[in-house]
């Protein structure tokens, strides 16, 4: 049966095979639609959209103003996107990046406080490894439950996020890690600060490198093939001799480790932190990771496309802060933009299944 469209001369046709190029077109169309809708929204708020976009991007990419923070936040977002993409390739929804970040934070800071007098060359790798390990343990828990018992990983990872939030809260607010300022942690020792390369922390280069590695993992390796096979059909994958438990564990452990790793970058890579801020502060960074879900989906789970997409969203996030200061708009417009972008993307997913065709007239 062909669904009918109310317009004369047009009809809907089922898409049998979605090509990569079509998927890219849909993603680009959703970004353009979101910009149009957000412009209308800005007009309703009483701002000139062109002027607002000018302010956003000129601030976000100005080396003296927003650029360092844009780079820092985009890197967190890229880590979050990669930690989301890899499990979803295998059909697992990892929305636990927030909790993995918190767990990684616990790991990194525990090492830094315990061995603060070690030289940087030993301390920093140790912190990175522990942060990744803590994130990996979180991921392994959810991956094991999914692979072994089929427990809904969406709910599990979200619950772990909330547990992670309160774990950090317990440690920092009035807990053993409390600093001089109540509800903030003690500062990191100077030997734990991330060394700068060309004025940015070295961890900034780590994220794109991992993105490239993931790209080749999907493209070339056996395990990448197995991940994709499980993602497209579990019965078929099992028939082909793929162990779902092993793959579920693999994607969640690596995803969790990536996000855990980013905890080091988050707090040691930005001189404005060098400690765990008060709960509103670390939650603000934690919430940033949820945009990784959107970035991952819009990139059609392509790790390479995630690099520019994360920079784009990160710059909007950082540049959006000037709307409050320069144009006197209400705080949080950047959040609105991302929400609109996600919704337009969802709506345009319709074209994953159907396309609108012009009916050719006979004769």
């Amino acid at each position: 049966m062909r669904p009918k469209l109310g317009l004369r001369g047009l009809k809907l046709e089922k898409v049998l095979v979605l090509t990569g190029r079509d998927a890219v077109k849909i993603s680009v169309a959703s970004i353009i639609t979101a910009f149009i809708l957000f412009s209308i929204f800005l007009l309703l708020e009483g701002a000139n959209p062109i002027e607002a976009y000018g302010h956003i991007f000129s601030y976000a990419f100005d080396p003296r103003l927003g650029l360092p923070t844009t780079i820092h936040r985009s890197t967190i977002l890229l880590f979050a996107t990669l930690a989301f993409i890899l499990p979803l390739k295998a059909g697992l929804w990892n929305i636990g990046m927030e909790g993995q970040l918190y767990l990684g934070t616990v790991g990194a800071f525990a090492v830094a406080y315990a061995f603060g007098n070690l030289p940087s060359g030993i301390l920093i790798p140790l912190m990175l490894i522990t942060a990744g390990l803590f994130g990996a343990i979180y991921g392994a828990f959810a991956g094991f439950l999914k692979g072994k018992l089929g427990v809904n990983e969406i709910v599990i990872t979200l619950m772990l996020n909330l547990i992670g939030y309160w774990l950090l809260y317990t440690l920092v607010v009035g807990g053993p890690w409390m600093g001089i300022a109540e509800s903030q942690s003690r500062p990191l020792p100077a030997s734990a600060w991330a060394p700068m390369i060309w004025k940015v922390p070295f961890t900034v280069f780590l994220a794109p490198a991992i993105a490239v590695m993931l790209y080749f993992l999907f493209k070339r390796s056996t395990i990448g093939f197995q991940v994709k096979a499980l993602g497209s059909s579990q019965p078929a994958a099992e028939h082909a001799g793929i162990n779902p438990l092993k793959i579920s564990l693999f994607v969640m452990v690596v995803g969790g480790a990536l996000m855990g790793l980013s905890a080091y970058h988050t707090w040691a890579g930005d001189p404005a932190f060098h400690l765990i801020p008060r709960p509103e502060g670390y939650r603000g960074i934690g919430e940033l990771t949820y945009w990784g879900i959107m970035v991952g989906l819009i990139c059609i789970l392509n790790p390479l496309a995630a690099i520019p997409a994360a920079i784009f969203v990160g710059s909007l996030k950082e540049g959006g802060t000037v709307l409050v200061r320069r144009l006197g708009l209400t705080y949080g417009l950047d959040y609105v933009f991302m929400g609109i972008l996600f919704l337009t993307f969802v709506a345009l997913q319709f074209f994953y299944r159907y396309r609108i065709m012009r009916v050719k007239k006979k004769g």
Partner: protein
Amino acid sequence: MWPFIARCLEVATILLFAGIGELLDQRSGVLNVGIEGLMLFGAASGFITAFHTGSLLIGFIIGTAVGGIFGFLHGLFSITLKVNQIVSAMGIWIFAIGFTTFWADRYSGSTVPLSPRMGNHLSPLFFLAIALVFIVWFILSKTHLGLKIRSVGEDPSVAEATGINVVRTRYPCVVVGGLLGGLAGAFMSLTYLRLWGHLPTDGMGWIALALVLFSMWKPWILLAGALIFGVVWQFGISPELFVPGLGLPLGVCRMFPFIATIVVLIVISTPKFRRKWGLAKPAALGLPYIKE
């Protein structure tokens, strides 16, 4: 003790509103993992309305209606446009996080008038929630409409062949699910919390989702689950009322409801439970229905 029990019952009310709506949704074969988003919208719009009009009733009505609109939107995406139901619900949830942050956080710290309470402590809406459990149970298991809803959730193509319109059966369920999600959020911000803070739903919507899975899609088990989690949640908020002199830090107590949710999900996923569960689960849950 009574004030504490009343608070527990009010948490159960939130979970019941959200859960019973989701249960109806899922019975018709539509999974909405974004209840948290529906609740956020219900909470924010209800709160802002009540704050400006001074009327809790109008707040409740608007909050519920806005929940219904987003329930409808989920239906539009997942039933008509045939988008993956998880992607659609995630979109609505993330949109809710973004939009309510922008829209409602300027009211942080504001309060609304005190809700009328029975015996000074319990909101009468608790009994509405109980009534809804009964109504949904009655409709699902005793009426022709319920049969239609269940058959659409089990096997839409067979249902279609027997003359049931799948789309027209699913839409009302999704919209009612949205309305109830909105009501749950409005109840949370207007009665339970009375105060706006950043993202006030705090994972409650996700617990409601877990409870629906736990209930094996049976309203009475959902009621039992909601009552238990009402106590667990409130224990996390004010443990000293429950066990005087308990020395645990606040943060540790607040983890309890979430740990309990994980434990429950693990238990119901064990093979022993699964045998029963496998029979009860709507077979077409989460699959978009595409006519051939």
